[in-house]
């Protein structure tokens, strides 16, 4: 049986992994390659690098990190942040990324999803959706770190990017991100039930029960978390054992 995936996410800037809440109070969490290798040893199913570098002159740093990671860590690597053109996608894939995630650029230019997936294959293209609840049972897509309401329904946008060729959706609840209160399970389930492509739940994980809930109640195909792993609260292995004990299929 296909295993549900656990994906540690590493926010990378200036060559270092950082973690903060709502982009403030960033704490240095270490060297990305070292951390990726550690997660691999713990049994992570993939790792995701999110390049949160603001200035474009530092963009090439992420390419070097991806190259180094691909030489040493033999599990799938997704890279996102600052992807605006098909050329950006190609450069990241050529450096060693397996999947590339796009967010704001996809909202501004949905053709990018189509062009990129036509060129490199759907399996490489992840569309990241930042969603925020606007009414009970309703979520809108936000951009720019949750500041801009696009007015689009997150569920409808997920269906649209699936049609355009996205191979996977990385769904983040802006309401929950950084809170440690758990995933927005209703949002996760609404999106996962609406599409035929895999959905990764993200935003709000504070304990292992949250990860299990994301799969069993949110119906996510994979769960992504950052801080609970970075600062040693839990290992990926512990997370998997916890989920397995609750009847969830994982790779141990």
């Amino acid at each position, binding site marked *: 049986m296909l295993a549900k995936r656990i994906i540690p996410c590493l926010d990378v800037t200036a060559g270092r992994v950082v973690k903060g809440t709502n982009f403030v109070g960033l704490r240095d969490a270490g060297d990305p390659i070292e951390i990726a290798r550690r997660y691999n040893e713990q049994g992570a199913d993939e790792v995701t690098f999110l390049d949160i570098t603001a200035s474009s002159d530092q963009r090439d740093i992420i390419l070097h990190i991806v190259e180094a990671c691909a030489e040493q860590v*033999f599990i799938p690597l997704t890279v996102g942040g600052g992807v605006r053109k098909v050329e950006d996608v190609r450069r990241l894939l050529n450096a060693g*990324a397996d999947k590339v995630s796009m967010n704001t650029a996809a909202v501004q230019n949905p053709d990018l999803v189509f062009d990129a997936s036509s060129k490199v294959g759907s399996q490489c293209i992840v569309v990241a959706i930042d969603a925020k609840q606007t009414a009970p049972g309703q979520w809108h897509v936000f951009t720019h770190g949750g500041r801009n309401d696009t007015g689009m329904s997150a569920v409808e946008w997920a269906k649209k990017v699936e049609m355009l060729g996205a191979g996977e959706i990385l769904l983040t609840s802006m309401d929950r991100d950084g809170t440690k209160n758990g995933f927005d399970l209703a949002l996760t389930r609404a999106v996962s039930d609406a599409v035929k492509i895999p959905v990764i739940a993200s935003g709000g994980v504070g304990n292992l029960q949250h990860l299990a809930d994301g799969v069993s109640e949110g119906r996510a195909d994979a769960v992504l978390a950052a801080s609970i792993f970075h600062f040693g609260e839990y290992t990926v292995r512990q997370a998997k054992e916890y989920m397995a004990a609750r009847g969830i299929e994982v790779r141990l």
Partner: protein
Amino acid sequence: MAGRTIAVIDYGMGNLRSAAKAVEHVAAGATVVVTADPAVVAAAERVVFPGQGAMPDCMRELDARGLREAVLQAAREKPFLGICVGEQMLFERSEEGDVAGLGVFPGVVRRFPEARMVGADGLRLKVPHMGWNEVRQRPHALWAGIADGARFYFVHSYCVQDIDPALTAGTTDYGLPFTCAVARDNIFAVQFHPEKSARDGLQLLKNFVEWRP
């Protein structure tokens, strides 16, 4: 080209770097070259044929670079490892874009049938089939040191179905059982990505590097 050379065939599709680096990681004393040169492929001791993206594009690029003959020749005479679309291309035909493959093996590559995409829990199975799934082995040298049922990383929407059982070296279930590893003589080809399958994937690549078919 002194010593042992392992050629990773480059026809311009997707990320060959990971495959090359993973082979390099386990191939002590060998030279791993990523190449689009038929002469280098012909001179290599063994060949890795990766693939990513849509099969029609892969076939087109393979021909555009004049590599078809080199691939077919390698598949006839030296240890040959196909990966993902590099496995699918060995068959006669793919439903994806209704394109002809290399025809090394009889059989057709089909999309996961929508009607079968229901899990044991009654929920829909997502396509692409993405993630770590269990591989049931048939006896073969390339499984040495790998537990039967070990998980490998898959990412694909098409797979070979209903092929000659004599060619099957491994199977996986996803809505339906499908062949995820095929083997004949000097050829071994897998639907999953050994270069992304952590320890067991590296073990398979190591077995390939040392394989004397």
